[in-house]
């Protein structure tokens, strides 16, 4: 009788409903439903990708597999069976045995998810030890083996370090080791590579995939990046606003998507942008810029020279720490360079912000990555956009209102947005308002610093299309800073690739993105996940072959 008659799947979710309490400005807090009845099964040892944009409920569903609701999130209905038990009906004691034992979790930001005050080893083995799965000694041996398998340097001793003593990519591997250490049946990977640079992402992705395969663990792999999930999962479930859109094998979802929404996700980033030819006189000429931050003893920018032509886009590409945002600070005058000069529209710009003319300030505007923090939450959209109109052009009353409405029309936001507060806007709408604010000054150059990085792919596409359209209408130039090569392909006329403060490759887009490549650009380009099955293996095999060849 003890033998189960039917083989139960490892994870069985039926009619899962999840609610949350929201606190809209000016309204009473109230409960809303964010996941509206989701069903799926996951067999042992298989990987299911949950994909969708922010707000699709994918993380929420992933955490529901651990009977956990983040913040004010509560599971309001349905069943979640793990190894045959409905964990939503279990008491807190049983749920605690499940968490960290049977089901474990890998978060997006390992840097935040490790306790800064404790050594890595202690944290990696903690769950395995107190869940009674292994003794301290066994758990530590297992952790070292996992560190080794995940390709961490010095696996014997890395556990003795504190989280701040290892890099972001290494910490993400440590987090994977933390999740695998208690020998769980299921791991929930919640955007585990999203915060990493592409060249790091590919290695971590490969390490995670290998670890999943070797340990035979099942996984829920949550991401907004379909190209990434295509590399690791057996099945994919597409979610939109808390409901399932499509479910199928990875092959079917990628190569033969049925639903319109899935098709849009698969074909995202397919904006075609014809490259413009450089003019005789560049709008912006950056010459031999070298810069360092005060109180440091190394140059963040080393001898950087680039040109940007009127009505065109120069993309500055690089990974974190490459100096691309510092270049923007130097151009805006926030960080005076130690050497070099900047020519803008035929005149030499003062290196220091306070000594620049109002005209210089007006003609050079910025849009930031986090639209959220770039706007005063206590001001309406009308006030935010109206401010530069008053400041630069002295517009008042009716004239100002008319101009604000024109700008709102240009960024494709309709009537009624003037009186809204930033908190009432979606991420994409906020970024549009920031674009309108920059445009209000009638600038010749807009510096766009990772403006689409915080947005979902489809929303980001919309912003890129808008920027291209506005460039045509207003003849404005963009200095486009990004780490994302797909964005670069979509928008740039010329490209500068940066590495450790230097420009390693620079020229028209068609040249920069065509072989022969230098080593770094090759690494960067080949690391961008492609929307096809087996891409990861191909790239890794190719790299192995090349390094063997050398």
């Amino acid at each position, binding site marked *: 009788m003890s033998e189960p008659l039917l083989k139960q799947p490892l994870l069985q979710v039926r009619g899962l409903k999840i609610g949350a309490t929201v606190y809209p400005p000016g309204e009473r807090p109230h409960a809303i439903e964010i996941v509206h009845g989701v069903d799926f099964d996951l067999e042992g040892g298989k990987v299911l990708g949950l994909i969708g944009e922010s707000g699709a409920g994918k993380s929420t569903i992933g*955490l529901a597999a*651990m009977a*956990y609701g*983040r913040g004010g999130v509560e599971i309001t209905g349905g069943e979640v069976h793990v190894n045959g038990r409905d964990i939503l009906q279990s008491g807190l004691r049983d*749920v*605690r*045995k*499940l*968490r*960290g*034992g049977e089901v*474990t*979790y890998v*978060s997006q*930001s390992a840097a*935040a*998810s*490790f*306790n*800064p*005050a*404790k050594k890595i080893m202690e*944290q990696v083995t*903690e*769950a395995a030890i*107190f*869940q009674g799965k292994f003794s301290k000694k066994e758990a530590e041996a297992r952790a070292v083996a996992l560190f080794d398998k995940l390709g961490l340097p010095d696996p014997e001793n890395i556990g003795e*370090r*504190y989280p*701040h*003593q290892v890099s972001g990519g290494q910490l993400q591997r440590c987090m994977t080791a*933390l999740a695998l250490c208690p020998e769980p049946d299921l791991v929930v990977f919640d955007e585990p590579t999203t915060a990493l640079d592409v060249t790091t992402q590919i290695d971590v992705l490969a390490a995670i995939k290998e670890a999943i395969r070797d340990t035979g663990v099942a996984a829920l792999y949550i991401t907004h990046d379909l190209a990434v999930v295509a590399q690791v999962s057996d099945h994919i479930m597409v979610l939109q606003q808390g409901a399932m859109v499509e479910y199928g094998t990875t092959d079917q979802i990628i190569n033969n998507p049925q639903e319109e929404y899935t098709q849009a996700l698969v074909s995202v980033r397919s904006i075609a942008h014809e490259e413009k030819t450089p003019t005789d006189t560049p709008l912006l000429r950056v010459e031999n810029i070298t810069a360092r931050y005060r109180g440091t003893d190394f140059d963040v920018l080393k001898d950087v020279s680039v040109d940007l032509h009127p009505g065109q886009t120069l993309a500055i590409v690089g990974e974190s720490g490459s100096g691309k945002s510092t270049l923007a600070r130097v151009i805006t005058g926030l960080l005076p360079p130690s050497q070099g000069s900047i020519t803008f529209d035929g005149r030499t710009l003062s290196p220091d912000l306070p000594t620049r003319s109002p005209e210089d300030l007006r003609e050079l505007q910025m849009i930031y990555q986090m639209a959220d923090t770039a706007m005063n939450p206590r001001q309406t959209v009308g006030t935010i956009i109206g401010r530069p109109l008053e400041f630069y052009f002295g517009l008042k009353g009716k004239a100002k209102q008319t101009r604000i409405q024109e700008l709102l029309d240009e960024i494709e936001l309709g009537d009624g947005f003037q009186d809204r507060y930033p908190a009432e806007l979606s991420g994409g709408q906020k970024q549009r308002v920031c674009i309108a604010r920059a445009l209000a000054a009638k600038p010749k150059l807009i510096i766009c610093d990772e403006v689409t990085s915080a947005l979902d792919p489809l929303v980001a596409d919309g912003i890129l299309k808008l920027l291209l359209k506005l460039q045509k209408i207003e003849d404005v130039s963009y200095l486009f800073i990004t780490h994302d090569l797909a964005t670069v392909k979509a928008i740039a006329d010329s490209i500068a690739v940066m590495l450790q403060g230097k420009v390693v490759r620079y020229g028209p887009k068609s040249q920069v993105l065509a072989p022969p490549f230098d080593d770094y650009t090759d690494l960067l380009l080949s690391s961008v996940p492609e929307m096809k099955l087996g891409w990861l293996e191909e790239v890794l095999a190719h790299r192995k072959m090349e390094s063997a060849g050398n």
Partner: protein
Amino acid sequence: MHPILKLIAQRVALGLMLLFAASILIFGGTMLLPGDVAQQILGQSATPESLANMRAELGLNDPPVARYFQWLGGFLQGDLGTALTNGRDIAESLGGRLKNTLFLAFWAALISVPLAIFLGLLAVRYKDRIPDKLISAVTLTTISIPEFMIGYVLIYWVSIQMGWFSSVAIINDSMSLGQKLNAIAIPVMVLTLVVLAHMMRMTRAAILNVMQSAYIETAELKGMGMLKIIAKHAFPNAIAPIVNVVMINLAYLVVGVVVVEVVFAYPGMGQYLVDHVAKRDVPVVQACGLIFAAVYIGLNLIADIVSILANPRLRHPK
């Protein structure tokens, strides 16, 4: 040199400089008072000749800078001068008083600090529920009532009605430790009630702040219980702000308990200082001022050093 040693050395040097500055302020401040020591000793009816003689005798005709360094030099060698009112050596009479003050502060701290931290942890564990609200309500009430009031209420209930402890906290060296503790039991209770709320609320706030961190979620998803998470994962990251508020309260226990000393007739430093301020005994006021400043600066220095040591990024640089 380990960067942390450098940081600590910097703090210590800063503390010493601060103490030096405080000594100048104390000395300068008492100099600004109308009249001088000679006038104080001889009284209003003194003749100009006797005043001049006295000034010469006390060295008051020397330039102020020279007198300051003489005072400071004496202080560093343990010579605090002589009290004007009774002609006794200040170091001697102050030593006993300081010992008593530290004795009272020690026992008050020994009870209040762990209790405050424990109550803070408990309040976090039962956040927004009855235990949390009860702890907040009670501690906020006791901090809001003037301490002499709490003192008299406790004397009435604990000492007179129940007859448990002595209502007068006079202690002397011939008493045993048990007798002494019996004598100071009620003042210790009063002080505990007074300092509890501040430390408890800071503990609660600091830990709640840490509880928002992603690594607390990691711990929850390891299946750990709340109390264990608070103690193992949250508390080590909340040490710095807690130690800071604890040290400020310890300083208060040493420096600011004059009201309680008066209520219980406790022979501590506060009472000694107040007595001599009333009698315009400048050397005693200066000595007490400098000792209080040293206690404040010293305890805050300890808080700073603990904060530095509690930071793993400083303890284990890359």
